[in-house]
């Protein structure tokens, strides 16, 4: 555990990509199996452990520590796992030998829910403070170390002198602790052969179009497609096995039986999951809100199947039959896709059409006023681009519609955590509406990012100087027509909601600008938000 804990400590504080890779490679080279495989899983997010609740680790510490002293400590450190790892005092007779990460993970996997408490206590007693921190972050699922799965794979490639594409191709067919993978990378074994058919293959992702980026690119080299507002999926039918995966590789087959039934072709396709009618039927396509009725369900009722039928709008082909065509250029893969969809069920599959354009200005106009509300922008794909795993900059771009904007009034603030533990950085904001007692603010959302550090300092100062009431950790701030703070909130979408008092729910709201130039009375009204929903429906 010592080596893993030190690796985490270093990764968190190391900004340079190459230095991170070197730390990872050195760790993978010097750490034995299965610990290194579990470390890889922890970093790449493929490790599944019975989650330990933060309340449990707090309780364990309070078995040994005065609650007031704990509170002083937690307030000072600002992170529960770190507080417990630092303040924990093992009994004088505790064994001090280091426990390998692999042993800890395997012990956790064997342990039932009822024995977790004593296992966590015992493990904390045996580790040093860095080890305790790493352990607590692992079991509470809060391992944030600034290393993407992609970076970890790059380190694996460097370790074995392989191409990262090879690692990506194998990735979803392997599982922790990745023994055959490390055997191959250390030069002691053959490249692992994937036995499971219809495994998930990493999807290709686009990078956002940056300001002025298109000026240097030739429109003739690119195809454009609408960016549909559904969820990105991968459908595989291979070796007689059918699977539907989300873009992160979660198996969501159970929630969409009609798609699985209709997938009577062999191959792997990439597309957008939507509900309603396909372009080949004469029913309208549903909105993202409609699609949400079908998400996060293990099974699906007959009524939902009839009311919100799902279909796939095809983007790309990875495997045609059993043949991997990812190295082929985009247009060739699209030909294969088009042929496949032509002969597939018209209610369940259609082809995402290409948008013809001759200049970036023309495409910009099309992007800003798309023909259907369920479009959230355009995608640009180089005609010659192979299908590459992960987010590679250059071949594919996404060019979104401008997000929605409103002016809202700050109502409540709460302290942030981690880097922002000493600042009021979580904000609830509201807009005006007519209530029983006349015009009043109604909260419409919460945001805790979007602002710069300098803007955060201004917001924090405002909160401290204008608190009118406290509810535990929450402060209510002054918010009257002529006194208060207006912020511009940007968000990606808006839906009706029965869970919120305001009746609206925003997607990804963020504070995009501070508007000290405006008075709260100038902020938007709830009707504006309701009109945004109506415009999308």
């Amino acid at each position: 555990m010592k080596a893993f804990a030190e690796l985490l400590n270093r990764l968190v504080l190391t900004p340079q990509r190459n230095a991170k890779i070197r730390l990872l490679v050195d760790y993978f080279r010097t750490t034995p199996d299965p610990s290194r495989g579990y470390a890889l899983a922890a970093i790449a997010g493929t490790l599944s452990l019975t989650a330990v609740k933060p309340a449990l680790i707090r309780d364990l510490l309070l078995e040994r520590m005065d609650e007031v002293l704990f509170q002083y400590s937690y307030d000072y450190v600002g992170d529960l796992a770190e507080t417990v790892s630092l303040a924990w005092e093992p009994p004088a007779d505790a064994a001090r030998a280091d426990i390998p990460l692999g042993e800890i993970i395997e012990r956790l996997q064997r342990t039932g829910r009822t024995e977790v408490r004593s296992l966590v206590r015992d493990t904390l007693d045996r580790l040093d403070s860095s080890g305790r921190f790493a352990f607590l972050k692992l079991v509470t699922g809060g391992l944030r170390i600034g290393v993407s799965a992609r970076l970890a794979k790059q380190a694996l490639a460097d370790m074995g002198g392989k191409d990262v594409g090879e690692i990506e191709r194998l990735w979803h067919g392997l599982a922790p602790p990745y023994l055959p993978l490390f055997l191959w990378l250390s030069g002691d074994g053959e490249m692992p052969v994937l036995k499971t058919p219809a495994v998930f293959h990493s999807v290709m992702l686009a990078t956002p179009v940056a300001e002025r980026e298109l000026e240097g690119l030739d429109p003739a080299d690119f195809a454009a497609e609408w960016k549909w507002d559904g969820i990105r999926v991968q459908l595989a039918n291979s070796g007689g096995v059918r699977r539907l995966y989300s873009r992160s590789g979660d198996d969501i087959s159970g929630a969409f039986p009609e798609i699985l039934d209709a997938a009577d072709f062999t191959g792997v396709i990439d597309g957008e999951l939507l509900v309603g009618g396909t372009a080949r039927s004469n029913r309208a396509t549903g909105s993202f809100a409609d699609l949400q009725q079908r998400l996060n369900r293990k099974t699906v009722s007959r009524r939902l199947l009839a009311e919100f039928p799902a279909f796939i709008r095809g983007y790309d082909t990875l495997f045609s039959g059993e043949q991997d065509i990812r190295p082929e250029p985009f247009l060739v893969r699209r030909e294969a896709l088009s042929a496949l969809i032509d002969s597939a069920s018209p209610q369940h599959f259609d082809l995402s059409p290409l948008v013809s354009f001759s200049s970036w200005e023309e495409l910009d106009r099309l992007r800003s006023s798309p023909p259907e509300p369920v479009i959230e922008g355009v995608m640009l794909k180089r005609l010659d681009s192979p299908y590459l795993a992960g987010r590679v900059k250059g071949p594919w771009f996404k060019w979104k519609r401008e997000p929605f904007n409103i002016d809202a009034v700050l109502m409540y603030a709460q302290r942030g955590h981690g880097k922002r533990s000493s600042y009021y950085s979580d904000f609830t904001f509201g807009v005006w509406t007519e209530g029983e007692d006349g015009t009043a603010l109604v909260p419409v959302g919460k945001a805790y990012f979007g602002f710069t550090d300098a803007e955060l300092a201004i917001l924090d100062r405002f909160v401290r100087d204008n608190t009118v009431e406290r509810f535990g950790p929450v402060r209510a701030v002054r918010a009257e027509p002529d006194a208060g703070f207006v912020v511009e909130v940007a968000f990606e979408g808006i839906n009706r909601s029965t869970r919120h008092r305001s009746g609206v729910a925003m997607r990804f709201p963020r504070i995009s600008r501070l508007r000290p130039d405006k008075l709260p009375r100038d902020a938007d009204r709830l009707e504006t938000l309701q009109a945004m929903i109506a415009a999308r429906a």
Partner: protein
Amino acid sequence: MKPETLLYPAPKGLYCEKGNFYIDPVQPVERALITHGHSDHARAGHGHVLATRETLDIMRLRYGDGFCGASEIARLGETIVIDGVRLCFHPAGHVLGSAQVSIEANGTRIVVSGDYKRRPDPTCLSFEPVPCDVFITEATFGLPVFHHPDDRAEVLRLLQSLGQFPERAHLVGAYALGKAQRVIALLRRQGYHAPIHIHGALAKLCEYYQREGIDLGEIRHATVEGENRPDLAGAIIVGPPSAFSDRWARRFAEPLAAFASGWMLIRQRAKQRGVELPLVISDHCDWAELTQTIRDIAPGEVWVTHGREEALVRWCQLEGIPARPLHLVGYDDEGE
């Protein structure tokens, strides 16, 4: 005599009315007792200063010959009487020359420990517990989360990084008095004998430590002007932490920022300062040592000066030891 009549906090610092002197006053006074040379405790401009020889030397190095009207050397363990108040200096283990002061009158003894630590330090004498009625302690790291690791292991982490990133210059932030010399001495004890480069702000104090017989090995100046100035790839450079965010640091090969301080235990502190390699090396007591020291001395009462006094006072209450915070201002409890 009641202890709070013998010594009490006044606007200029802790004041002994009977002897008419202050301890570590934050403003110029007629007569001052100084526990150690850190600039928040040892200020220039007092009429008369009583301190250990090393502390007086350090003040002279920092402020020049006219740092006070008159100075007087206090020898460790020797009693001095001022207007019926018996004074004695004892080693505090904080930095070279650091001392605790015991003050006794009419059968009441108060020990002002200044800043202190209990770990062995190759650059200064170890703390000596002195029995007393009132023990005045700092609480810089007075929270149960502070457990300083073994300083040798921390130095080994620096050497390991040097092996892992030999193309990068390793910049170690360390306060100019005490910490810098301790880090260098620790590196030497771990068998690191290559020249160690220092920022100009450390030069006088490093020379002084070496004159006092503390072996720091070969010290070179990091700041060399001219055409062929070295980029110091793979070398260790010690300097004040403030210099590292400066243009000064950019002259070196891919600088890797380390920082030797007790605060580096808290991850966000390291992150906020842009430190890549935090080294938890402190010249103060951690929580276990603060509480152990109070147990060792078993005073009738504990007064807490600066730092996280509320937690230490709480601990004393739980242990049944009368304790109170003094709320002294002017001491930099973050600077380490």
